[in-house]
């Protein structure tokens, strides 16, 4: 987490390249020579109290330098905190008041701009994958730079403040407008964009704006199932912190995910809410580089929003037609044959596999001639421990079960936060189906045997993984 934040902040610093230059001086050079005389004025404002007490200003500046790399929002608070201290110490009264108001909104706008763009930059950074070496080198340069800023500022403070005072009296007539000069807003935005998006911020901003524009004009492709790769990528990035930080996901047997061609992933189902499907999809995309096409129950597609989202991230109905269509077109499909019996089983029966449906997944895989990859998921059972069920209400709502967990509905929405269990997903050795006879898919005995083989593999792996994991939460 820390590394990530640092890369967000420091890619900008590395790009700016000027050793010992303050952010605003870089911005000044960007804004052109016209902005040059103006800029010191803004910079001089924060250190203005330094004139009366230079010793006091220095520590506050170091505090800022410390907080700056950690979080942009924090740096905002320190900046805006500093702004109000100035008018208090200011002895110049009316002359000083104008710059003070000027400084506060300026810092606000710089802080807001990165916030707005941060969301856009985040996923893109993951996709682009900046090499770790560059970010670490950027980090090392970043610290001395910020120290240099404090020194420079402290030194320039007195002279700049005097100049400012002179200028304020000089331009009192025409420049008496209360707002922020447009130039400074532009400079602030440019600075913010640089900080968030890095040195090539103009290009990156342009690409993200054009991507948004294409999105808004409907100019994107989906496949026949409704799979939208752009949405799916956003979801993978959104799920990453949940999987890696909250569930501390460990993935084993990544090499068993085929790099190309179709495959059928068969996994155990648990957790009251099908989060295991989402996390498995994330693991396949992140570690295997493939898109998982989950096959879901019809209830998923009947629910508003859920069904719409499920189709966009690649899910489709668990039926023979769709399964065979996906597998024969070379996609990786995922099934959870236990279905609602697995996901809605009581906590006491955790990690005990339920009946594996009618084995339809085996015949689909055989017809398409693709391997079956058994997937064992440990950790999903503990996220919402199902201790009770309200069957009558569930029937009324048309749901297969209505869960009662230790925290839901007792704590209301808080109870909907999944417990932070430790997760292990193991992709097992693929079971080949292409060696069977063509009419094997119609042989029920063979289908039952293969189904049992897959089921036993997953069950045994689950026991092994449970031993490996130890405590469920720590």
């Amino acid at each position, binding site marked *: 987490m820390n590394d990530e934040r640092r890369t967000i902040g420091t890619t900008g610093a590395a790009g700016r390249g000027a050793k010992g230059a303050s952010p605003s001086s870089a911005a000044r050079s960007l804004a052109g020579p016209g902005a040059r005389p103006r800029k010191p004025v803004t910079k001089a404002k924060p250190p203005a109290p330094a004139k009366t007490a230079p010793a006091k200003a220095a520590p506050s500046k170091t505090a800022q330098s410390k907080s700056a790399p950690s979080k942009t929002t924090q740096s905002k608070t320190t900046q805006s905190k500093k702004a109000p201290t100035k008018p208090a110490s200011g002895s110049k009264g009316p002359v000083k008041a104008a710059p003070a108001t000027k400084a506060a909104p300026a810092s606000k706008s710089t802080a807001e701009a990165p916030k707005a763009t941060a969301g856009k930059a985040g996923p893109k950074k993951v996709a682009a994958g900046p090499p770790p070496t560059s970010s670490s080198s950027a980090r090392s340069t970043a610290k001395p730079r910020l120290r240099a800023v404090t020194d420079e500022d402290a030194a320039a403070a007195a002279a700049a403040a005097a100049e400012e005072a002179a200028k304020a009296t000089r331009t009192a007539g025409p420049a008496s407008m209360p707002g922020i000069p447009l130039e400074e807003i532009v400079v602030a935005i440019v600075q913010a964009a640089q900080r968030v998006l890095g040195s090539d911020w103009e290009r990156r901003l342009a690409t993200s704006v054009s991507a948004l524009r294409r999105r808004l004009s409907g100019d*994107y492709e989906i496949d026949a199932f409704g799979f939208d790769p752009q949405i799916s990528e956003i979801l993978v990035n959104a799920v990453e912190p949940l999987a890696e930080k909250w569930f501390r996901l460990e993935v084993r047997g990544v090499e068993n995910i085929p790099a190309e061609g179709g495959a059928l992933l068969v996994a155990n189902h648990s957790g009251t809410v099908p989060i295991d499907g989402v996390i498995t999809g994330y693991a396949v995309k992140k570690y295997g580089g493939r898109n998982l096409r989950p096959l879901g129950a019809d209830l998923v597609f009947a629910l508003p929003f859920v069904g719409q989202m499920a189709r966009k991230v690649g899910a489709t109905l668990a039926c023979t037609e769709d399964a065979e269509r996906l597998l024969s077109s070379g996609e990786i499909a995922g099934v959870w044959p236990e279905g609602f019996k697995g996901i809605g089983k009581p906590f006491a029966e955790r990690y005990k596999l339920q009946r594996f449906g009618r084995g339809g997944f085996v015949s689909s895989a055989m017809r398409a001639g693709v391997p079956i990859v058994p997937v064992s998921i440990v950790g999903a059972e503990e996220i919402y421990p199902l201790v009770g069920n309200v069957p009558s209400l569930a029937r009324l709502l048309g749901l297969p079960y209505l869960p009662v967990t230790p925290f839901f509905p007792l704590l209301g929405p808080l109870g909907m936060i999944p417990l932070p269990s430790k997760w292990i997903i193991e992709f097992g050795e693929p079971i080949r189906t292409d060696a069977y006879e063509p009419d094997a898919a119609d042989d029920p005995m063979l289908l039952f045997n293969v189904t049992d083989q897959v089921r036993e593999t997953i069950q045994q792996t689950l026991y092994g993984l449970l031993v490996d994991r130890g405590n469920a939460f720590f």
Partner: protein
Amino acid sequence: MGRVVLVTGVAGSFASRVSRALAELGADGGVDRVVGLDLRPPEGDLGGVKFVRADIRTPVVAKVIAVEEIDTVLHLDLAPAEGRGSGGAKERNVIGTMQLLAACQRSSVVSKLVLGSTTAVYGSSPRDPAMFAESASARGGIRSGFPKDAVEVESYVRGFARRRPDILITTLRSAQILHPDIDTPLRSYFNTPILPAALGYDPRLQFLHLDDALAIATQAVVSDRPGTFNVAGDGVVLLSQAARRLGRPVLPLPPVGFASAAGRVIRSLGGEMSPDLHRLLTHGRAVDTTALREIFGYELQHTTEETLEEFRQAQRPGVLAVLGGAR
């Protein structure tokens, strides 16, 4: 010697174009004469088509077939109800088809029947597979309205096929044509300046290009292609995507009571919403056209997206078109 073709429902915007296209083929193209049958007079010029004004729900049809020595019937008089009253449409769709089939069964000259059916026979439900093949049937069941009519008509035609196995029968299940001049429920829906949509649902839609529809209907008449075939442009477009491309704002309405609410919104904007459209606009539908390509032998010229794009260019730009800009 060419064929003598009877086109039913010739006053319809698509049927009149097909009949004109068939008439223009002429004897060289394998069509001697084209007779158009409808209760309403056609709006446009029918060219070389002989128009017979008769009610398809009456035994007059049998006389027309006998007098004109019809050997090929192209049954296109299958249309969803216009407006709210659906009684008349059902009467025309189902009883009309029964009369037509009865007439064909009597005739010794008729050798081919082409039925212009619709993909609505597959219904629209959350239990649908992603794409329907011809062997599939409606999963969610079909309760009423035009889809039910179409299912019944198809079952009558299957019964007719059993009774007269010597007659070639082609059933074309077409998606809706999206073209500014062809009157379909989806066209009138996309003509409204604000598009009501079911909140939380984003249906997948398929459109058929007019050129493809004309070519396929002509080919089914001229050459022998027995069987049932799905006809729709390749690929799918989401409703939200289509709305963005057309630059029209979407008005999300609660899914409960969506049909009446959407109908009210569209009527207040001066449009008309077909009573059976709301299910398609909630769950969507897509069909597999492999059989059309491999068995019928027709390569679709326009995808769903291209059809939509052509439609967009013919439309006035929507309110939100500035967001998308020129592409």
